[in-house]
């Protein structure tokens, strides 16, 4: 197991390097000029200086190398400095956003809490709702509960968040006026009332996201339970007189959870990646919105860094899911 983990970790390094190169080359092709917003009255030689200040004067491979050094060497130092009060990174050039002229990682760190709160809560809610639905619809296969569950999860699959989001805004904030349609990120929770307000503004985005995730997870849970319910060991467990509750909730459930846990692990990168569309609909200024803004403003260092962070998370959680699978299921041996 350990050798497998180490081998996968070692393999992940070239994969990530290649992904960062792909993203970099793709952005390199960008026709957009970061100097396009500069007024025409600025003389060309000043413009040239500004381009060089952005690091655009050098050839491609040097800029790629610089980005790699900044991201993998200088940014961790900045983090260490922040936590331990040391000064390793003093005077080093960090990845600078073209939009705000401030370090990209600082902005990312500012935006992450909003995304984590909204998307993370939605994920937790979805897991809590989806698992019982999946278990019960598998246990009573083809009952009306199962049929209804199938229909609801199909709807959850099919209704895109930009429609369900707009729909809940129409219903709950335009018609009923229960919740605010815009998520106020400057809101500070310091009393009971402000906590209630925070809850109110979180309800709708969480609802929209949770519907989608619940749909996928409950389908998966159901299929996995169905696979296990017909196995011989279930008959054995019943035959030796265990109660139905113990059979389903202990024997079958534990075995069915193996693939579901890995699916849950695979979905975690999307928490950090933020729900780009949902954040856009409810004006949550999280990571997803940051990315959209950066793409529209042609802020290449920001886009490069953000997409790369997403890629790192995806690769990492793929690895975690594989390892989890091996740990949870003794039938699977990677060596």
């Amino acid at each position, binding site marked *: 197991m350990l050798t497998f983990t180490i081998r996968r970790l070692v393999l992940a390094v070239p994969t990530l390097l290649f992904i960062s190169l792909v993203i970099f080359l793709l952005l390199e092709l960008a*026709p957009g000029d970061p100097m396009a917003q500069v007024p025409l009255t600025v003389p060309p030689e000043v413009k040239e200086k500004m381009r060089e200040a952005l690091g655009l004067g050098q050839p491609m491979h040097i800029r790629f190398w610089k980005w790699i050094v900044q991201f993998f060497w200088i940014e961790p130092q900045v983090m260490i400095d922040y936590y331990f009060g040391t000064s390793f990174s003093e005077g080093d050039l960090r990845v600078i956003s073209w939009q705000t002229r401030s370090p990209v990682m600082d902005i990312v760190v500012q935006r992450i809490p909003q995304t984590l709160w909204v998307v993370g809560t939605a994920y937790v809610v979805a897991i809590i709702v989806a698992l019982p639905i999946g278990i019960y619809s598998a246990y009573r296969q083809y009952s009306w509960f199962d049929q209804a569950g199938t229909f609801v999860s199909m709807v959850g699959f099919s209704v895109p968040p*930009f429609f369900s989001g707009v*729909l809940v805004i129409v219903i709950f904030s335009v018609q009923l006026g229960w919740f605010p349609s815009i998520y106020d990120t400057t809101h500070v929770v310091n009393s009971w009332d402000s906590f209630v307000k925070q809850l109110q503004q979180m309800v709708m985005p969480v609802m929209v996201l949770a519907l989608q995730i619940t749909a996928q997870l409950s389908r998966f849970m159901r299929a996995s339970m169905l696979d296990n319910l017909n196995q011989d060991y279930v008959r054995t467990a019943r035959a030796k007189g265990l109660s139905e509750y113990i059979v389903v909730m202990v024997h079958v459930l534990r075995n069915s959870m193996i693939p579901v846990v890995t699916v849950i692990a695979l979905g975690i990168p999307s928490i950090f990646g933020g729900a780009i569309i949902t954040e856009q609909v409810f004006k949550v200024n999280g990571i997803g919105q940051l990315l*959209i803004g950066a*793409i*529209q403003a042609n802020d290449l260092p920001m886009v490069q860094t953000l997409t790369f962070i997403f890629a790192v998370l995806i690769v990492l959680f793929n690895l975690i899911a594989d390892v989890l699978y091996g740990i949870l299921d003794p039938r699977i041996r990677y060596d």
Partner: protein
Amino acid sequence: MTELSNPTPAKPPRSQWLDVWDQFKSHKGALMGGILFLLIVLSVYFGPFLWDIEPTKIDIRARNQGPSLAHPFGTDQLGRDMLARMMAGGQTSVSVGITAMLLALFLGSFIGVLAGYFKRLDGPLMRLTDLFLALPLLPLLLVMMLLFREPLNAAFGLERGIFILIVVSIGITSWMPTARIVRGDVLALKEREFVLAARSIGTTNTKMITRHILPNVLSPIMVSATLGIATAIITESALSFLGLGFPPDFPTWGRLLFDATDYLQQYPERVFWPGMAISLTVLSVNYLGDGLRDALDPRIRGR
């Protein structure tokens, strides 16, 4: 011995596709989904012949009207007929969905068959698939939209350029699941006796793939085709909704929804039609895929 003494079978032989159709029919949701999808496609493509108001015709005096006999879905802020715009938008959305699905399907089956059939290609091609799966797709799609919009518009004209761009970028970011499924099936097929028999009479690799392998992996390909249409339509609408898809005066369902959100307070019903159209199409296609999966699986069939 009774069987042998009576060599003529009582019933005429049934073809495989008849069995598939019987199983498919028994899945009510799938049948409904199929009919609904067919209806949507027909009304979107042939509806404009019956309802011949131009979707771009501006009638400023009839703007922001509610549903009436002259305009069953109402009109928008420029007085354009919503029904006509819905049909025009549907044409684009459905065409994008189907074309992108075909491209993804072709890529996926091609890579899947190659990886499964030729052992030497398996490693590199599957690493490539893993790599694509590790890419953050929606951000990448957005970046691609941003980068290649101008050059393609210049090369092919405004609408065709963006159509090609959207179809190609959705196609090359959604072939991976198909490739994985097809590869798995091909790997299993390759060990079967009929492949050995075919090889022993000297079948070439090309013939082997086209005659023996491809027909046998058709069912997973068909299932991923239906699911591919659904994801392609949603992705296209999402791009249009984020303002990075088709140009503003060119209606698609996603674009209509996006435009309607500006008038959410006054005319909420205008959001409803395109959103409903997208959701219904995707829902019907998903049910269709669900039924197809059951119908094409011989282990489930006949249960």
